[in-house]
């Protein structure tokens, strides 16, 4: 029974790289790029949010528009969009969560101005900023109001605060279950019962299915957790860039480790942005995206490092792997600060050289990781 839930979640996860369906659970889909897009607003408008990732190998259509220096994930997303992978959706919402997404928006906007492509859905852009000052919060509120107004136009219906509150509660339920998957199936004292690859799929399925469907499957998975085997191996916490595919997880776990947690928004970080029962819902929506659970881009290295150390310690991690991606510039700047923070909680960090997005092999990373894992195993056995 539990395997059925796990299998269904894994199958849902795989749909992320196919064409965006026109509807989920009888709701028209809106594709989105960027973890800062307030999916609660899309749900409140009656849409089904569908997170749109890159796909390894899908670059050709975007190659002429993107020179070197653009994150391969964004290049791949642009290629998929140009190929019509989001054509069936009711629209595409992007945010300012990192330079890759900003570039993707700028290029899409310009392509549509110069040589309109019918397969690209209408665009919206949520310019959420991240400095922890009131000035940015005021701007963010004005942008959220504009985003809500635009989604209301797309939906041909008003979006009330009651709609938003109901959607926030629904998405908070998803986030609570993501946290439960972490605490019960990845970091429980008797050992992890999901591999990192499996956990990534379980969490990632939440971004491409309706909350109703995903919550039912996640609850089923948790209820039957005892039937899942324990996963041996050195416990690794993964920091650095985001992972919209499992290739880094597969490599690390092929070396005998098990990934028990991560601080990127395709993984456990997605469970850390609760809206909660706020009286000022729109401010809470902004705050949850702008300040809670910082990703690397847009946030201070010190804040990021404190979070990495806290989450890694809570996972009981034996080793932290900092995995960075070429042209995703922010995470590499965090590493010296993360290393210091982790030293204070007694967890070593190994930093992998920046890897190309979607590569079939990561040989330099594999050599480094194998050596680090052997060293850590020897240390722990002493």
């Amino acid at each position: 029974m539990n395997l059925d839930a796990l299998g269904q979640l894994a199958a849902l996860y795989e749909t992320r790289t196919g064409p965006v369906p026109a509807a989920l659970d009888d709701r028209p889909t809106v594709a989105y790029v960027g973890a800062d897009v307030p999916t609660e607003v899309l749900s409140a408008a009656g849409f089904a949010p569908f997170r749109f990732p890159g796909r390894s190998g899908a670059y050709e259509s975007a190659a002429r528009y993107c020179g070197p220096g653009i994150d391969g994930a964004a290049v791949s997303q642009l290629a998929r969009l140009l190929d019509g992978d989001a054509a069936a959706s009711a629209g595409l919402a992007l945010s300012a969560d990192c330079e890759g997404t900003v570039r993707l928006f700028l290029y899409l906007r310009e392509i549509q101005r110069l040589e309109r492509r019918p397969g690209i859905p209408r665009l919206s852009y949520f310019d959420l900023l991240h400095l922890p000052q009131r000035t940015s919060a005021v701007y963010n509120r004005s942008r959220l109001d504009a985003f809500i107004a635009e989604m209301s136009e797309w939906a041909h219906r008003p979006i009330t605060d009651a709609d938003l509150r109901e959607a926030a509660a629904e998405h908070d339920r998803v986030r609570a279950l993501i946290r439960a998957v972490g605490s019960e199936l990845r970091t429980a004292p008797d050992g992890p019962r999901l591999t990192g690859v499996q956990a990534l799929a379980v969490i990632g399925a939440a971004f491409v299915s309706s909350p109703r469907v995903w919550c039912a499957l996640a609850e089923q998975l948790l209820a039957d957790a005892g039937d899942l085997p324990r996963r041996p191996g050195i416990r690794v916490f993964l920091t650095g860039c985001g992972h919209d595919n499992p290739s880094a997880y597969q490599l690390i776990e092929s070396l005998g480790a098990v990934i028990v947690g991560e601080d990127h928004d395709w993984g456990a970080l997605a469970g850390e942005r609760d809206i909660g029962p706020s009286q000022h819902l729109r401010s809470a929506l902004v705050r949850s995206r702008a300040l809670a659970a910082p990703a690397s881009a847009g946030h201070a290295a010190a804040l990021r490092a404190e979070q990495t150390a806290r989450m890694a310690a809570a996972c009981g991690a034996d080793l932290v792997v900092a995995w960075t991606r070429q042209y995703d510039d922010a995470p590499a700047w965090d590493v010296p600060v993360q290393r210091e923070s982790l030293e204070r909680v007694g967890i070593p960090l190994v930093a992998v050289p920046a890897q190309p997005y979607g590569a079939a092999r990561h040989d330099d990373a594999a050599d480094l990781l194998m050596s680090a894992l052997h060293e850590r195993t020897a240390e722990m056995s002493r």
Partner: protein
Amino acid sequence: MSEFTRGRRTGASLPSAKAATTYQRQWFARLKERAAAGDPVALVNADAPQEILRALDIPYVVNQWWASVCAAKQRSGPYLRLLAERGYPADQEQYNSLALASTFDDDPPWGGLPPISFVLAEMTGDALRKVFEAWQRERGATFLGFERTVPREVDPHWWDRIEDDWEALVGKPRIDLMTAELTGVIRHLEVATGRTFDEERFRTVMELVNEQQLYNRATRDLIARTSPAPITIADSIPSVMIPQWHRGTEWARDAARTFYEEVRERADNGESPCPDEQIRLMWVGTGLWFDMGFYSWFQETYGAMFVWSMYLGLAADGYIRHGEDPLRTLAGRFAAFPDMINAPPWASEWYAKEAVHNRIDGAVHMATTDRRGNYFVNRAIEAAGVPVLQIVGDSGDARSWDQEAVQAQVAEFIEKRVAPVAARRRAREERRR
């Protein structure tokens, strides 16, 4: 911007260029004296609103100017290694991180930067904020950041409206945000330094900036319509940019006027570094600080002059603002500044407009990364009838620069693609005369 780099003269010949370079050395010595006497010094990024520091009389060093000094002294490679030794990336934001790296050097150029108390920067891209936070961590400087904002829709032809209609063009929310940020930064600096922001002085600073850039506009227009061009970018870059880093002072305004007058005199007398000008080229990208002599070889070989760089073009079009409220007007200058040179359609359409205005026959576009939206820039310039060659290079990183290979690449471009365009332009202009 040193006079000699890699044994090749830069070709700078204008008295104003030499005077600016001399002034900069004297200014830097005075700045270090002030720092030694206890004055706080700021480091600012090129597109940060330096005018508030001018009004507060807080001395500042421009990050990119200092990077150009380090690069011209052939320090970029060693400095990037110093960054790597401390665990920082050495393969991204090289131009913006050289100044930080220079503080790790025991023997930096010009005796090195003074202690930095404040860092002011806008945060385009993912790494810039981290670079300037590192200043805080490594050197104890307070980082005062300005958000980078992105509008939903834009009018591509910004240069037609931005002087007076900046509020509508940039958008009220973006202007509101930057005005609020400026207010907060000014208050912080007042409290931290014990100085008072002088509103009247600030108004004067804003007026001086407009006056300075009007001279730059006149110079740009003069070069645009004059053949043979009275100067090349080897002259215009130091003559524009050193005063640009001092904008809001009488010296900078007067330096811009002197620069204009020198160019005017040359134009009136028909003087040119290349009297037999055949081809007019534009350089898209930041200056080639570690090889400023690169440009002159083409005028000697082909009569091909690099007559345009973004430095004079942007001074002419990008800074002038009119408005009742000077702080809001300053926000109108900088809230969308990155869009002008780095984001389509503002950047791409402006480069194309400048190519036409300056009667350009070919564009050489130096870029290591795609931050500028290279495809769209190249497409717009080509659509204006001007061929483009994109080359790989980074102003802050000489490690990968292959001078001979790039020279050969540009030479082939001139021979095969630019020369026919230039011939047609000259014939067209001849018919009109």
